Structure formats: structure tokens, C-alpha cells
């Protein structure tokens, strides 16, 4: 999956439709921010899935990721901090024919609005959730989040973070989800493939993107990940429908960090199916 030449070939044929998403606006992210590549991969994925502007609504949380809300030429909504998942779920209910994508950072998802994540997974709302994990609160100038590694010195934690970090994928897997995948901001091609798979999924797609934050997260830049990432495809006999294999696989966030579709439950009924609607 890490290989990509066909992806570029395919995009070449769809250049005009790719261009519709591009903006001429000045971008406000820091140089080297992972958001550039994530937004880029999102545009690619929309194009390759043959979605047009009338087919998709992108919902943004508040934070650095949220500042992308007007940097893609599409219908977007830029809501409240921590609340993008219920907003997106409401949008998905409001019009079943439109693909709803939600994005939010680690502060919003694992502190302000973690309850929403639990229930979005449980309800299996038809929403693609691109979870931006840069391990800190960037827009408020580098405070630690619940996913910042223990011991790291951050703004508001001058002596280092005192508590253990949460493991996002492990947490979500404990909720019996229908789709869990991981990628990282140093690999646009891989992100694109994962986003495409998420878009194709009928329920709630949880996609964690390990994201570079060159300004505040010096611990885990793209290079750090590049040395450590492994791909699920490389594993022999990996069964992506086996939740216990998945939980074992996502445990390691230090040495061998596995990317790809780590878990899929094709039997889980999505929101509409379970509601009988």
C-alpha cells in the first residue's frame, strides 16, 4: 500500500477534478505542519473516489486542523472545539446522500469531547473521522494533550507531563468499532489510500494520523515516525477482522508503529441499519 505510482497516474487523469478543491488563499499553518499533507491527501482521496463538491461536506473542529476549514474549496462547517463529531453525525442524518467527513485534533477528541468519540463509535454514524494527532494543543501555543508522551516538557507543563499518554487506537478498539486505521503525515500516498478506504466504509471510520507539529512537538516529527513506521501489509497472516490481533498491534507507540487498516468489522450495523431506517 505504501507504493503509489498508480495513484499518481490515476490523479493525472483527474487533474481537473483534483484542482476544484485547491485554494488560492494564503495558508496560515506553520512551515512543515502536517496539516498541509493531510489536507492534500484528503483532496486526492475525494478526487479518486469521484466525489464532487455537491457530494461531500467537511466538518472541522477548532484548532490548527480547524484552520483548514476555508482552505479547501468545498462545503464546510467549522464548529465548536471538541464538538465536531455530533455536528458531523447530525449532518450525516440531515442528508444521507452526502458523504460527511470530520476532522479534529487530539485536544478536541481526547479531552474536550471524548464522550462524543465513544458514542460516535457505538452508534457507527456514517462519518469519516480523520483524527489529527500531533500530541499537543498547537493553536493555543503548545500545551500538552492527553496524548503527549509522559515526561515531555510543554507549555503549562514546564517540568514535563506528569501522566501517561492515552493510546487513541487502543481506546477506540476497546469500543467495538467498525473501522480503525492509522497513517502519518509524512506519507501522502498512504494517507490517501487510507482516506479512500475510510470513505468507502459505510459506518464510522476512525482514522488516526500521526501528525508533525514542527513548532511545539519536537519529540515526534515526521522523521521520527519514518524510522519507526511499519505497514500492516507486511505482516503475514494478519487478520484485520480479529480485534485481539488489532489491539495487540496498536499497543506499541515507540518502536514498531503499525500503519494501515488495523481493524474492520464488516458485520457491524451502521447507524441506519441498526436503527432500522
Amino acid at each position, binding site marked *: 500500500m505504501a507504493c503509489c505510482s498508480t495513484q499518481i497516474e490515476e490523479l493525472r487523469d483527474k487533474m481537473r477534478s483534483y484542482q476544484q478543491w485547491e485554494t488560492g*488563499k494564503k495558508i496560515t499553518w506553520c512551515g512543515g505542519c502536517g496539516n498541509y499533507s493531510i489536507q492534500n491527501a484528503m483532496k486526492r482521496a475525494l478526487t479518486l473516489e469521484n466525489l464532487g*463538491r*455537491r*457530494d461531500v*461536506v467537511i*466538518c472541522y473542529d*477548532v484548532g490548527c486542523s480547524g*484552520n483548514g*476549514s*476555508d482552505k479547501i*474549496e*468545498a*462545503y*464546510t*462547517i*467549522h*464548529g*465548536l472545539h471538541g*464538538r465536531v463529531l*455530533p*455536528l*458531523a*453525525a*447530525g*449532518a*450525516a*442524518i*440531515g*442528508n444521507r*446522500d*452526502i458523504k460527511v467527513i470530520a476532522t479534529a485534533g487530539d485536544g478536541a477528541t481526547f479531552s474536550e*469531547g471524548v*464522550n*462524543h468519540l*465513544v*458514542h460516535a463509535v457505538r452508534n457507527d454514524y456514517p462519518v469519516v473521522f480523520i483524527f489529527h494527532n500531533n500530541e499537543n494543543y498547537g493553536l493555543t501555543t503548545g500545551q500538552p494533550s492527553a496524548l503527549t508522551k509522559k515526561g515531555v516538557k510543554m507549555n503549562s507543563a514546564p517540568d514535563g507531563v506528569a501522566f501517561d499518554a492515552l493510546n487513541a487506537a487502543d481506546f477506540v478498539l476497546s469500543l467495538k468499532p467498525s473501522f480503525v486505521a492509522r497513517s502519518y503525515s509524512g506519507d501522502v500516498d498512504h494517507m490517501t489510500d487510507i482516506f479512500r478506504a475510510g470513505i468507502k466504509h459505510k459506518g464510522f471510520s476512525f482514522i488516526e494520523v500521526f501528525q508533525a507539529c514542527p513548532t511545539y512537538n519536537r519529540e515526534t516529527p515526521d522523521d521520527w515516525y519514518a524510522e519507526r513506521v511499519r505497514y500492516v501489509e507486511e505482516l503475514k497472516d494478519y487478520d484485520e477482522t480479529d480485534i485481539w490481533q488489532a489491539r495487540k498491534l496498536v499497543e506499541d507507540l515507540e518502536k514498531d508503529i503499525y500503519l494501515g487498516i488495523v481493524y474492520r468489522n464488516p458485520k457491524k450495523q451502521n447507524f441506519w441499519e441498526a*436503527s432500522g*431506517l
Partner: protein
Amino acid sequence: MPNRVKIKIAGESGAGLLSAGKITIRALRNKGLYVVADREYPSLIKGGHSCFRINAGRGKVHGLCSGFDVLMTLDKTSVVAYFDEINDNGIWVMGYERLEGLEEYIKKAKERGIQIFHLPARRISTEQGGNFLMQNMVILGMLWKALGFEYKFIENEVREEFADKPKLLEIDLRCLAAGYEGSFDGVPFAKRDGVNFGEMTDEISGERMILDGNDALVHGAVAAKCGAYFAYPMSPSSSILTYMAERAKETGIIVKQCEDEITVANMALGAMFMGMRSLLATSGGGYDLMTETVSLAGMIETPLVAIIAQRPGPATGLPTWTGQGDFNLAVYSAHGEFSRVVLAVSNAEDCYLMVQHALNLAEEFQIPVILLTEKQIAESLWTIDGFGEDPEIRRGLVKGEELAGLSNSDRYKITENGLSKRWAPGSSDAYYFANGDEHGEDGSLTEEADLAGRMYEKRLKKMAIIEAALPEPEVFGGEGGADISFVGWGSSKNVMLDVIEECREIGVKVNYLHFGYVFPLKKAVLKKFLDENKNVHVIEGNYTGQFANFVEGEMKFEFRGRLLKWNGRSFFVEEVLDYVNENKM
């Protein structure tokens, strides 16, 4: 009040009083009477006290009286709690077996001319082959006899109630008959001197609907073509969720119980953003959690309708009692400045219509609309002749060919009156950004002073056309020259309509100006009312006089007095009459 009977049914919570009360209400309706009934109960499921306060009359009954002509008690606790509120010469229907410990009440009853109808209801129910819960049927028969109405009316309703349980029905009917046939020495209420129900029907007439305010709200939501309902349970709004869920299949409304109120507000807003009409309901505490989302709706000019079913606070307060303490919450909640409308319902008919108006206003003007109801309205049962005519549905969405001609910047175009075009995502090639950050005309973020200032102004400028579109308040009891006048909102209207009638009969002129649209304030009729009446008071169910303060600030004048109440009970006719006597010119 010679044309009204006031009944209280009291007993232990969970002892089946709810069904006894409902059967009584339906039987009264079938006798051709108008009924208003409030259920009073504590915030627990079993144990504690609960009661039905029922007022019924030949003419339309709007409000409730504090005293009652007939008290029906099943246990000693109820006697102790409510005996003193029986009117002199009233009737005390007693189903409690043992009279030990009640001697003092029996003595007092005799002194006050109260007639006692006593039967050992529990013993009778077991003698008839029933269980102790069927004592309700015995005492129901006793109550009906004490009221002085024909047996067939109550019998018919008991048959209806237990139609699907034929074996039990037989025993229930025996219990009912045993109660009705019990020996009562007194004069039944309807046959008393001075009681005048006019010509009464002998035929069972079930034409009028019986429903509570929350039920009516759901009917209104269906009429308004609401597509989705989101809620988190909270008294006294919870039964809206129940009714919505029960009717979801038939109505096609998507009903979602969410994980919290923040979710409720965001899901409702998300659905509205996509062009689907949605509703949510909660009480004050739940609404507190929603306020940030209300602010977002104001900013992105996306409709949102929030129903707040008021109960007295702060904090958990009195969860199962009534009040009008959330006017300020509805009007001033949520950070920043933005346009909004606040409506307040007064009764079941109002619930049905106002929820439709709320959706129209929210969509047409792209604003949050808050609809205030009260426990007393939400859970009171009313007989109604029918619903008023449905207002036309106004979506405020660009439709048809015009969609093709839209440009991105039409969405938040800075127009003369502040209103710009709205269309649902996907319905046009002209995409836009619904941006919670300050933005330009297509929704692109801006921090530029001039544009930010003009966009801020655009959102607030809308208030002028919104205010112009709202109806004026309604005058009851004549426009001017009253001995005493009242201004109010919400359920106050019910008690005022009864007070106006009562006072007319004794030659005191009372009039009342009712605000259904409480914010923004409509001033023309109000100004005239204040000019033409010299003794104007306010009536509202809170301590600080929230609406009074608002009106005084807007109109630069002072009410002559304020009739306020905040103990969880609604205004009763008697206490307003007392206030009239003390304060009339």
C-alpha cells in the same frame, strides 16, 4: 365558581392514581365538560405523594384553582396533606380502611360542613376478587357518585382502559360498581344548590381531544414536517422524547436520544445545516450545556430551535414542579451578540402552533429560536376542541432554478436588512464555508477590521426585520379602562382568562396583555395598553420579575405592582383574585 368542579385525587406515588385520574378526566370530557388537570408528583418513581388536580366546567376552563370541592384520598398521608384545602361544604371521598387517627379530621369536616363518603376500598376490592391495587376502581366509583354523574360515563371509560385485559376488566367493573353503589348520605356535587352546569348531555361525547402540552408539541412538530428530533432525557421535557419515539415509525421523524445535551444541540444544528428541519427539547440545566452551540448557530446563521421546558432552579431545583424562571436564560444566554427570537407557549393549543412558528422563524431568519414551555403546560392534560389552522411552512431556502445562479458570496452577503440567502449543502455548485470564526461573504475567515465589523453588524441588523415580522401581543378582557390590568407570558394566560371571567361577574374590569413572542419586545400594542390603562401590573412565575424588568427597561416605565410566584406551583385563580381585590383601582 358555580359552573366548575374542582377535584383532587391524592395518594401514594405508584399506586395507580395516574390511571384513575386519566379515567376521571376522560369521563368528565365524555359528559361534555372542559377539563384542565395537572399532575403533581415528586421526583421519584414509587413512594411519596402524587396527585391529580382536576378542574372541569361547562364553559372553557383555562387555569386551576387552589381549593377543591371534592378530595379523594386513598391513605392517611393524603388526608393530612390536603384536608385543609377542601372547600367548606365540600366532599371528602375516603377509601382508607381505618379511621383511627383521623378523628380530628372527621370532627373538622363536620364543623365545616364537609360531607364524608367513606368505604373500606381495599377490603371491598378483595371481596370482589381483585387485588389491593383495584381499590382505585372502588374509590373511582365513589368519586363519580359524589360528583353526581350517571354511572355509564365512568363505566364506559373503565371498559376502554382495560379493554385488552378482559378478565381483569370484569373484576374492575365489579369494584367500580361497588364503590358507586356504596351508601353516601350527602348531596352529590352536581345536584347541589348553586351548582350550575347548565344543560348536560346524557349521551357519551368523546369528541374533544385530551392531551398534554408535550403531546401537542409533538403534533405540531409533525405538522411542521420536522425531520429529526434529538434529546437527552430531562424533566419536564422527557415525555416529548417518549411521544416522538412512539410515533417515529408512523411520522418518519428520526428520533435520537443522544449522549448529552451538547451532542443534542450539535446534532440538531448539523441536521439543520443540511436542510433538514430538526427539533430539540430540554430543561434549563440541559440548555445551559447547549449555549455554546446556540452561539455557533447565531454565528453561522443556521436555524436552530431549542425547546426549554421550565422547572424551578437553580441546579436540580424542583425537577417535577413548575415555574417561569428561564426568561433571562433564553434571552441572554450564549456568548457574543447575535439575533434570536424567544417564544413562550401558554397551553396545549399554543404548543401545537408555536412550535410551527418557531421552525418558520428559525429558518426564515437563519437564527436560533428558543421556545419556552413550563412543567405546568408540558404535563397538564387539557380538553381541546381541535387545533388551530396550521401556518404555512416557510423554509427560507433557495429552491429551483435560482440555485443554479448562486455565487459563493451570496451565502453571507452583507445586505441592506442583514438577511442573505441560504441553501443546503449539495443543492448548488456554489459551495460555502459555514464558519464559526468571523468571516467574509463566502464564509472565508477574516480578521480584517472593516469586514469583521460589517459582518458582525449584518447578523444583528436582522433584528429589525425579525421584530417587524412578529405578531403583536394579544389583549384579553377589553383594551382600556380596566380597574386592574396585567401583563404576562406563558401559563399566566390561563389563570388570567379565568380571573377576567370571574371578575366580570362581580363587576370588576380586569384585562390582560399576553406575550407569546417575548423577545424581541413588540411595543406598539403594549404602548397603547399602557396608555389606556392606569393600573398595570405584571404576573409571572419567578422571584426577580425577569420579564417585568425587561419590559420596564425597554419601555422606560414602572409597573404598578408585580404578582410573582416561585415555589414550584402555578398561579391559582383564587390568589390572583385576592391580588385583584387588594390592588384594583
